[in-house]
């Protein structure tokens, strides 16, 4: 934390790669106004960001695609850091396949679990008999990611493990590349990565009992796309809030979170009410730490 104080004019950010595009877009816009402020973003996954960077006091902000976990809160508290949560968008966690995979348009949650759980299906034909007798090529989120945690909780459940023999990456874009390149691939990640590449990969609808729902900004906003739609967050460190650059950047971020900027990146922006709440929360927190 001493080091951080010396650094000055820095806004170090780590965390979720799902949130990364939003933060990147916001930071790029911020650069136009304040090019001399050194905003840096690392994609470490939500969990990696909290445990390796945010709670040890090395970053001011953590991108998160899930809520901060209790263990992480404890770790932060040990270092005297209290995370302040801001919701900045809504995401539709998206399952994608190769556009040439003409046999599949929709999966039930049960089938999805069968594909992604340890000791589950190995081949497409294991899921449905009329699907090709070919092995999956699996691309998914690394265990340090919020996406993994969320998917694990919402789809796999407590009883079984998420499988380990898949192409695990923190870099969602790698998943796009991988799935695009192979007819028998399947992967999952944040909606934005699908939204950027709708022609190269195919999104699969999810049936959670009420019929097949395609992932989209609309279905996510309406709450139809279950169980995979989820809020996205950034967490600010109360210690870093003393830094005027961090305050300034957070104000800017929260204001942008209700704009088209978020939608352009492929997520659902927050409502203006949420934005105003967040701004208020921020000012209160700033007052507290600077008091």
């Amino acid at each position, binding site marked *: 934390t001493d*080091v951080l104080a*010396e*650094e*000055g*004019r*820095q806004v*170090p*950010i*780590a965390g979720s790669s799902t949130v*990364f*595009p939003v933060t*990147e*877009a916001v*930071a*790029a816009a*911020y*650069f*136009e106004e*304040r*090019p*001399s*402020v*050194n*905003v*840096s*973003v*690392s*994609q470490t996954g939500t969990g990696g960001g909290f445990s390796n*960077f945010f709670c040890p006091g*090395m970053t001011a902000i953590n991108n998160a695609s899930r809520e901060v976990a209790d263990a992480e809160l404890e770790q932060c508290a040990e270092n005297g850091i209290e995370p302040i949560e801001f919701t900045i968008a809504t995401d539709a966690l998206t399952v994608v396949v190769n556009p040439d995979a003409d046999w599949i348009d929709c999966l039930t949650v049960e089938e999805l679990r069968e594909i992604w759980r340890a000791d589950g299906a190995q081949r497409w034909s294991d899921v449905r008999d009329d699907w090709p007798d070919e092995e999956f090529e699996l691309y998914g989120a690394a265990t340090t990611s919020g996406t993994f945690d969320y998917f694990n909780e919402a789809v796999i459940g407590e009883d079984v493990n998420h499988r380990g023999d898949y192409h695990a990456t923190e*870099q969602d*874009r*790698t998943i*796009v*590349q991988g799935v*695009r390149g192979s007819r028998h691939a399947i992967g999952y990640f944040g909606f934005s*990565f699908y939204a*950027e*590449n709708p022609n*190269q990969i195919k999104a699969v609808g999810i049936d959670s009992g009420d019929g097949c729902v395609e992932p989209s900004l609309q279905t996510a906003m309406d709450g139809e796309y279950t169980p995979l739609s989820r809020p996205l967050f950034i967490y600010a460190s109360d210690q870093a809030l003393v830094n005027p650059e961090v305050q300034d950047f957070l104000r800017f971020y929260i204001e942008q979170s209700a704009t088209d900027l978020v939608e*352009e*990146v492929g997520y659902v922006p927050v409502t203006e009410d949420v934005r105003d709440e967040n701004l208020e929360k921020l000012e209160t927190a700033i007052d507290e730490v600077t008091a």
Partner: protein
Amino acid sequence: MAAETGDQTVDERESEFGQISRTKDVAFRWLTLAAALVGILSLAILLAYVTVDAVGWLDWQFLTSAPHPNPFEAGIFPALIGSIALMLLIALVTFPLGVGAAIYLEEYASDGPLTTFIQINIANLAGVPSVVYGLLGLGLFVSLIGFGFGTLLVAAFTVALLILPIVIISAQEAIRAVPDSQRQASYGMGATKWQTIRNVVLPRAMPGILTGTILALGRAIGETAPLIMIGAPTTVFGVPNSLLSKVSAMPMQIYTWARYPETEFQYGVVAAGVVTLLVVLLSINSVAILIRNHYQHDQ
């Protein structure tokens, strides 16, 4: 070859000495020439592709903007500035250390096991994978000393250690190329070792030392793996404003972008980034060549 010479009888030499078949010879010649060209040509083709792809993307906007998820708005400015800042720092660290070590090895060290050991050690350090240097930077500068992950200072020190052996080796060659008669002349005049080194050896070796150092800096500017290992951020916005600023460099940014699947990134923004990096690299190397030519004409 037996078949080729079999029909060549003694009598024939009355008028001729026969002809030895050159099929193998000619084929081999073309084969070796093809081998010599294949690498260069492949690279040339790839460079042509990337240059064509960069057209329309590599513009003023690209050079002066920050990275952006939208390829049409993305730019390389922070990484470009970061690379330049890194290079300056690296030069500041490696030049004195590298030249100092070379002077020790060439002018002071006597032939002994210690010298041989240092020499072999330097040659080996030059072959240690750069990712291992990254771990060194991570373990030493980030964890132990606490200069912060991904900072300019850590990046500069780490890459400096990486190119130091190259600088030392080329400086040694330059110093070794100074004729001994020059040293003798100086010592004969009652110059001390240091006076001889400063007044005679270094001025004469300097063009070679500079050339070698600049070429090594060219290597430094392309290094990515060490930056990754010391935790350089995925993307940096804004310019480095202190030694402890998070650093971004062109190769790091290219690495980040190379994993963006959008066609506009793959065949546009990254291509522009690659061309920018190569142009900077080329400029650095031309400076080295200019220096060398300049002094070659002088001597």
